[in-house]
């Protein structure tokens, strides 16, 4: 699919909780082309002295309405500047970029693990897996209840509550989400219905631990990696990831990699 650079008018830009924002923009070409796990490279207006684009995972698309949803956590100048944008402003998006999630053919039972805003690029995968008839378990981890911003959307797609954890114990299991992952893997194994796919996106230590758990359980696992990025189209080699096949680009060789290929 050819990449395009769309000027995308903003329809919605609001805080969902805990410095995590949701932005909906009109970008029909990207909305039609995007595959689960791909991202857009965002040029934020009004910050000419901060020249680089910001890569953001695609949270949801509506091909009919031509819209793209992005979730972003305010972490630096660019994302802070994004919060000042209002409907009627526009951002420029290159997309849809990268190798997305590639569950094994005929995937029947998937475990999806999201830490923080990692819930965004996993959401389209959940939708796709559910549509294909696969059983999907979702584990969402966040710092606190208000940061579990994707919980309702996940619940609607799954038809049941996702398993949640919060670091401060304000919702779901208290602590990190890794015990929930371990329990899900063990329970599926014990029931004789093991998962055939684990997908994880979140802080890198979480992905490393989940990848190790999946490897122990003998389940194919993919992770979505994030690096500082300049071009976003594979030219500049800024965003490389250490893999068993050498340094590969997070933007176009990833962002999703089979976990077994990543050198942590």
């Amino acid at each position, binding site marked *: 699919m*050819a*990449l*395009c*650079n769309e000027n995308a008018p903003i329809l919605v830009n609001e805080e969902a909780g805990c410095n995590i924002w949701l932005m909906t923009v009109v970008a029909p*070409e990207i909305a039609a082309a995007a595959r689960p796990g791909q991202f857009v490279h965002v*040029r934020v207006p009004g910050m*000419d*002295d*901060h*020249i*680089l*684009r910001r890569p953001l995972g695609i949270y949801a698309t509506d091909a009919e309405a031509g819209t793209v949803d992005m979730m972003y956590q305010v972490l630096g100048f660019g994302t802070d500047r994004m919060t000042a944008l209002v409907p009627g402003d526009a951002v420029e998006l*290159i997309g849809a970029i990268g190798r997305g999630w590639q569950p094994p053919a005929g995937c029947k039972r998937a475990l999806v693990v999201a830490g923080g805003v990692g819930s965004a690029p996993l959401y389209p995968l959940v939708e796709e897996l559910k549509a294909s008839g696969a059983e999907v378990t979702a584990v969402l981890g966040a710092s606190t209840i208000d940061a579990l911003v994707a919980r309702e959307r996940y619940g609607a797609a799954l038809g049941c509550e996702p398993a949640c954890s919060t670091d401060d114990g304000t919702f779901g299991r208290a602590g990190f989400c890794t015990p929930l992952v371990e329990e899900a893997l063990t329970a599926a194994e014990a029931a004789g219905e093991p998962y055939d796919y684990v997908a994880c996106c979140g802080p890198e230590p979480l992905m490393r631990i989940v990848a190790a758990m999946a490897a122990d359980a003998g389940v194919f696992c993919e992770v979505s990696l994030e*690096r*500082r*990025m*300049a*071009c*976003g*189209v*594979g*030219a*500049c*080699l*800024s*965003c*490389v*990831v250490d893999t068993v096949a*050498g*340094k590969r680009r997070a933007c*176009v060789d990833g962002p999703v990699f089979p976990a077994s290929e990543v050198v942590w």
Partner: protein
Amino acid sequence: MQRSPKETSVKLAVNLGGLAMKNPVTTASGTFGAGREYHDFVDVAALGAVTTKGVSLNGWEGNASPRIAETASGMLNSIGLQNPGVAHLKEAELPWLAEQGATAMVNVSGHSFDEYVAVIEALEEAPVAAYEVNISCPNVDAGGMTMGCHGPSVEKVVSMCRAATKRPLIVKLTPNVTDVAEIARAAEAAGADAISLINTLLGMAIDARTRTPKLARVVGGFSGPAVKPVALRMVWQVAQAVKVPVLGMGGISTGEDAVEFMLAGATAVAVGTANFVNPTATVDVIDGVIDYCEEQGVADVNELIGALTC
């Protein structure tokens, strides 16, 4: 969505030391891959030339991450000339560029004098219009800038490359020297057909909160709009110091930026970091040069070269 420059009656063709360019705009090596990465956005055949990412004989892994940091109106990079080696360029990228009808200039890198020559020798049968000898990369421990800061080693590597090819030989200089004119004269004396500059300025960024450098290699190459005044000054100095043409670059993101470099003495220009911000920057720069010429009654872009009034 692929863009080409607008139609115009302005004559845009320039000759950069024997390299015939249909317009004065090429890409700065390392910012455009080998063209394919940007082909969804711009017709690579419509550019004056595509300058490919620096290539070494057997491929280099490059530096550790993080490799970039954003700075005020610019960025630092320390990629370290990661490349898969000259065989891959020759087998995969150059045939593709030739198929598109693009003019290819290959940026040649090496850790030793002999490696530069070996890369050129490996490409002599390939569809290459010109070589750009990279003696200016600040991000490698051997070769690169270490070679380009010292007159005698500049003369040596350029003469060796000169002996290896009859194709146009462009020598890319680093700004990280005391007297860039002296280095340019050394390159010219050793047989360079043109001089390109500037490569990136050696810089550094620090995260005060973590008290660590923002780049894994601590220092890196500074580029982007912030460096344009330094680049203009050096292009102007070099254009006065040598008789061979100059390929100017450093912070160019608009047609007017390009015109300024030509007025300072550049025969052609390269668009670098701007590609990361705007994937159609190359074509936008060409269109901007056309707009300027039409508005100013310039019939031939060659009229602009060195036309600065001081």
